[in-house]
């Protein structure tokens, strides 16, 4: 381990290390930031959901969007894989289908950054029961 010889050194080190705790820090108030859920069942992964998830993880950070990216199970839209659900703070979640890297890029630039909808939205066709909060 190299020595920390000045306060500037320590500050630099903190910035380097901070991203390691990002996931935990963001989890403190997830409803205030963008939440992206990627459907990662067998069918989703086979259609490239893993690449899409990595893209979101990497790009959201690179583009300075505070977001939580998690994986979830099959959402039931097998015809439209890969599918993702995006929840902006204070809004209802929106599901997007056929998400390749190009569409993922659009979702970040348009929907997440400006709230403008993009192609590929899958209308909600069900209601869920809410486990007691």
């Amino acid at each position, binding site marked *: *381990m190299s*020595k*920390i*010889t*000045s*306060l500037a*050194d*320590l*500050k630099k*080190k*903190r910035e380097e*290390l*901070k*991203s*390691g*705790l990002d*996931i*935990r820090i*963001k*989890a403190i108030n*997830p409803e205030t930031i963008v939440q992206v*859920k990627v*459907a*990662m*069942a067998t069918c989703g992964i086979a259609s490239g959901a893993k690449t899409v*998830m*990595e893209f979101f*993880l*990497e790009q959201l950070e690179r583009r300075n969007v505070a977001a*939580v*990216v*998690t*994986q*979830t*199970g*099959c959402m039931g839209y097998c015809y439209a894989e890969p599918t993702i659900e995006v929840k902006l703070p204070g809004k209802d979640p929106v599901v997007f289908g056929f998400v390749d890297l190009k569409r993922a890029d659009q979702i970040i630039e348009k929907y997440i950054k400006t709230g403008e909808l993009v192609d590929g939205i899958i209308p909600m066709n069900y209601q869920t029961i809410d*486990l*007691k*909060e």
Partner: protein
Amino acid sequence: MSKYSMHLLVCGGTGCHASESDAIVCNLRDELEAKGLMDSVQVILTGCFGFCEKGPIVKVMPDNTFYVQVKPEDAQEIVDEHIIKGRKVTRLLYRDPVTREPVSDSKHMGFFKKQLRIVLRNCGFINPENIDEYIARDGYQALGKVLTEMTPEEVIKVVKDSGQRGRGGAGFSTGLKWELARNNKSDEKYVVCNADEGDPGAFMDRSVLEGDPHSVLEAMAICGYSIGASNGLIYIRAEYPLAIERLKIAIKQAQEYGLLGKDIFGTGFNFDIKLRYGAGAFVCGEETALIHSMEGLRGEPTVKPPFPAEAGYLNKPTNVNNVETFAAIPVIILKGAKWFSSIGTEKSKGTKVFALAGKINNVGLIEVPMGTTLREVIFEIGGGIRNGKKFKGIQTGGPSGGCLSEKHLDTPIDFDNLIAAGSIMGSGAMIVLDEDDCMVSMAKFFLEFTVEESCGKCAPCRIGNKRLHELLGQICEGKGSLDDLDRLRNMSVVIKDTALCGLGQTSPNPVLSMMDNYYDEYVAHVTDKKCPAGQCKSLLEYVVNAENCVGCTACARVCPVNAISGERKEVHLIDPSICIKCGACIEKCKFDAIFIR
């Protein structure tokens, strides 16, 4: 560093550690390895979450899922269901004690809702064995700030203005203590961390050292700079092996980074920390006794003055602070005195960590702003009394504290309110008592502890407490009189006034407060020879209810001393002079025909 998308935090505090949390970590890692997920999911062993009641705890981030009572064999299901398929494992979720509904997000748990975590900010959040995670959480920034931007006097002023008072129990102003140590000139001074946590039921110091050891190291260095000391010593009991282990790792890592040692941050300031082990004597939590123990002498207190700030360890000026006091210091430095003093009550600032134990649903470690009421602590955070029983009292401050009753439930907790109510803050142990607890036996129980832990140096504590204990024993056996109650009170007052150190001066507190708040119960023991809570065996009588007894002889056959007589199909009779009150007959009787009075 690879890009993780998920963190699994596994509690590695002593409680969860004992329930195989190490094996849980191993199994989780094995499962992730087998499923090829090692690069995207990270498993981290953390310090105590405070929710010891339901350990071991596994928390999944970023979705805040809080799994309780996890077993090593559950690892596979967590990985298969939650991580791969995104479905929470409902069977392992925490259930609301009232509605019995599973709570999926830990933020909705009553236990965490009212808490404000300053001292415990990193416990259960970072890996205590990795200094990098502490640095990522602004660790050692406060030390950097004081060394490069502040004079020692300025640091002391901030600590003084923050209103922080010693969390070891006495509640003395931390800043003032530092100032006294600074003003005594000497070629060498010492900073001592008192980690000799001895109150039965208190485990906050251990949890801080196990969960966030660097916060204490950093604060000790800040204190060293402020008072002009370059040596730090942590006095810790050998009964805390995990805390010792983590401290050793933390000290080594800090030294390797140059955050402890010579010329820290290139400022020319030197500070290093060593460990000193205690053998686990209650009296060594008293600062003069602690210092003697560190010097290799008997752990006995001496009269103050001289205070340690004048002549402490090796006769040099020494500043002794408790673990919890230190752990808040870096936050106070970074966020300022004003911020800290905005939390809490007029004379008690900031937050306090409490260890909840006894007849309460959520046994564990909590941190709340000063001024939170006992009712909020017991019924909202603590989840109420176990098995739906009735609340009777709460012993705060351990065996040196007092027992508060229902009428104190809405008292805002702070140093002065607790004293006014007849108890003390102490280290923050809270033992909750329910309707089945006898207040004479409880007082006897706490005195048993002080009698055993008394160092024997002064007569009031050595002899007086022994006599108090004997008197209480007699009352429990039905051999007490009303005069004895007066004797109890008088003797207690004398011991309080004349004992040498804090141990003796506070030891009669449980007796006095319990007599104040539950006097009727004491009178019942001496005049009616009855124990209303049904705990004092000698005062109980086992009686047959003639209406219910069918004469089956089952009780007579099970009685080990042949105290029950009666013909078959006729009402039986228990001879109280032979009965040893073992309770075997009650258990055996199918007709509810035997009761206690």
